[in-house]
């Protein structure tokens, strides 16, 4: 384990090494017996984490702004088209899907630019999935659910049953 850690440490760039040192110091600070120092360490760690995410972002914030604006405008136009050219119920469903996709795309851009954590992105995806399931009316499943279960079940004849054909 120690060898593996040393190897990883050797491969770090100086900026990464500096960040690691800061994180190590903050972890030490979080174990302080003084509650005020502990609270301050946690606060600093949060800010450090956000700064590090933004600094190591793969996409520039300006690019993200442009892409998000385009997605938003596209979504608005698509929703308008769906509501005008399709029946109300279908138009609403299509609009819901469009909004869902737009929100997920913008969240993905925010993730890539370091303004959204992976944890929050996953929470958003789960919430979107739950919301998306509600877009489709449950009546579409009802016929399948109402199908009589016959295979593999025994049916004992009663007096109400129609007479069987020979």
């Amino acid at each position, binding site marked *: 384990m120690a060898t593996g850690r040393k190897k990883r440490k050797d491969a770090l*760039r100086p900026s990464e090494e500096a960040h690691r040192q800061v994180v190590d110091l*903050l972890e030490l600070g979080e174990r302080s017996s003084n509650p005020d120092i502990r609270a301050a360490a946690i606060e600093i760690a949060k800010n450090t984490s956000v700064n590090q995410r933004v600094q190591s972002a793969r996409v520039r914030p300006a690019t993200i702004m442009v892409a998000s604006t385009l997605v938003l405008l596209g979504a608005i136009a698509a929703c308008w088209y769906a509501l005008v050219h399709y029946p109300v119920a279908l138009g609403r469903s299509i609009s819901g899907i469009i909004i869902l996709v737009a929100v997920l795309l913008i969240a993905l851009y925010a993730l890539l630019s370091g303004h959204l954590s992976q944890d929050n992105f996953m929470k958003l995806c789960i919430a979107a999935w739950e919301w998306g399931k509600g877009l489709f009316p449950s009546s579409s499943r009802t016929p399948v659910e109402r199908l009589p279960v016959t295979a593999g079940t025994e049916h004992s004849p009663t007096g109400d049953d129609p007479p069987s054909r020979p």
Partner: protein
Amino acid sequence: MSSPKFERVKRSNPRIAELLERLGTYIQNQIQSGQTYVVPKLAAAALGLNDGEAFVLLEILAAGGLLQRIYNLYCGNTGIVLATVDDPEQLDEIPHCDDCDEDHRLSGLKVEVAFAPNDALFTKAA
């Protein structure tokens, strides 16, 4: 020892004001004895704290505008400071080591987090 910024920081953190006062005195002594920056590890040893606690106290002073976090990049062979920067990204623009006359590999460099005075309270003239 007093300055409006320092007093503000102590007022914001009343329960660690005494620790901050001790740290402030230590920093002032270090600066007056010719040091240009404060290293958390040394401050911790002087104040009887662990490295993390000293770092957090120094960060609190930095947040109050009294100090600035800096990074020193050392040559691993000679221990000479190659660069001092305030943005960690600048550390990756590794300067040529004149003493060794070579561009060191990553494994031949050492990084140290430190704090430089940013307020008249912690300058030599104060």
